[in-house]
């Protein structure tokens, strides 16, 4: 039996309850609507045939590539931001986080101005020297997705690195463990929860990418038309398939969220 605490601040005024309930309703109603519109008997058929299945396959492949790029380049960047002291670090961090708040379509325009074949900063060079064209290609989809996903990974990993107590790495050093081995056997292992969370969020963001993708890579069926683009188009011609695909994306996000609940819903031991 525990005594009931009467903390100041724990007495909730009625208007707070009303506001909270309205906010909840606002968030949940569209999801309920979506679930209600899904034609359950036809979901499997809708997502395994025609443009829908093409889009799902493309989304899966490109989002995985984009996540790998975000991981391979985001981890070193997070390390530098978290552990190297230099002038202008906070400005650099703000720049790295910019794609998180930038309208994705602006990101797409920016990507065009850098990697566009005819008038991009390096796009022409890439084409002339290596014959690589990113625009209107699946590789362009990967670039657009990685561009928006990378900051999410960097943010999660950087805060993870900052929260590691230096005593573990210090004591490893005093035990004769050099910097490289220390990274693989101590730092990375302590970082694992943040790394997994960062990868999951980056992947979910890449999977849902719309604006930058359609602007930079276009909307070519079977080539650059990812699932979110397909949903948008199918809504007119084949709403049943659009709802089925939406449900698949929703389900994936729920799975990611449930897997990450300990980190993201504040349930930490």
């Amino acid at each position, binding site marked *: 039996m525990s005594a009931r605490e009467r903390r100041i601040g724990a007495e909730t005024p009625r208007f707070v309850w009303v506001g909270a309930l309205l906010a909840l309703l606002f968030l949940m109603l569209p999801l309920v609507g979506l679930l209600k519109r899904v034609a359950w008997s036809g979901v499997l058929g809708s997502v395994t045939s025609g443009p829908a299945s093409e889009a799902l396959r493309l989304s899966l492949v490109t989002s995985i590539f984009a996540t790998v790029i975000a991981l391979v380049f985001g981890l070193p960047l997070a390390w530098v931001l978290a552990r190297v002291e230099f002038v202008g670090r906070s400005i650099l961090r703000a720049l790295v986080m910019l794609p998180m708040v930038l309208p994705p379509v602006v990101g797409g325009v920016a990507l065009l101005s850098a990697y566009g074949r005819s008038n991009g900063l390096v796009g022409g060079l890439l084409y002339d020297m290596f014959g690589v064209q990113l625009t209107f290609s699946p590789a362009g989809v990967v670039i657009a997705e990685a561009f928006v996903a990378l900051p999410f990974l960097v943010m999660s990993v950087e805060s993870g690195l900052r929260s590691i107590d230096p005593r573990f790495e*210090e004591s490893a050093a005093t035990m004769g463990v050099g910097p490289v081995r*220390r990274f693989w*056997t101590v730092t990375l292992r302590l970082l694992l929860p943040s790394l997994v969370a960062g990868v999951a969020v980056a992947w979910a963001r890449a999977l849902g990418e719309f604006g930058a993708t359609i602007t930079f890579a276009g909307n070519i069926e079977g080539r650059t038309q990812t699932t979110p683009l397909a949903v948008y188009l199918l809504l007119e011609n084949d709403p049943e398939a659009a709802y089925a695909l939406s449900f698949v994306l929703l389900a994936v996000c729920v799975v990611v969220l449930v897997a990450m609940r300990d980190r993201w819903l504040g349930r930490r031991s």
Partner: protein
Amino acid sequence: MSLVFRGLVRLGDLTIESDVSVGNEVVAITGANGIGKTSLLKLIAGLISLESGSLKMDDEVLDDPSENIFVPAHQRKLAMVSQFDDILPFLTAQDNIAFPLRAAGMDRATSRVRAIEAMEKHGIRALAQLKPTQLSGGQRQRVGLVRGLIGESKIVLLDEPFSYLDESARSEVRYWLRGRLDELPGPKFIVTHDRQDVEQLCDREIALEQRPNQHSGLRSVATIVR
């Protein structure tokens, strides 16, 4: 083997000065809280670098800012036990103790056997398969001691190694430590508040004392008291 340490470092408000020479012996480091005992160990370990002066082990310079020499901690052949709980949380007690042996290049199987033998000797074999979260503070400190002293080393640095142990455990572990320290070469330092540690384990004593400072802040000076 002897360690010669003449130098100075400023850490925030605290200035630590040292002028000591230590041979093949066990030396207590004593002094009030916050006076810089742990920092002194970290300087010898290479976790902090000197601002001026030098730190030498026999003929090898470990730290000398005027010569731009600094040997990093992992190359100093240390046996160090921190006062803080630094048992790796993702490894069992046994794998924690095997960790420095693995780092020295020993294969996994041999290192695990050696770790078990060392735990047996210390009387904590029963803890081998437990994770750090399943251990008490005192048990973790014992694991840390066995881990810190399992390898070959040139310098031993122990920072309040018995702080989580109760009185009976303390005398038992002190006895074990006396034996282990006799086996190891080189200078050995123990930071402690306990006079019994100083009397039963140590040959000499270095006291950190505060001296008046011409500037603001604290100036701690390490001097040999016996």
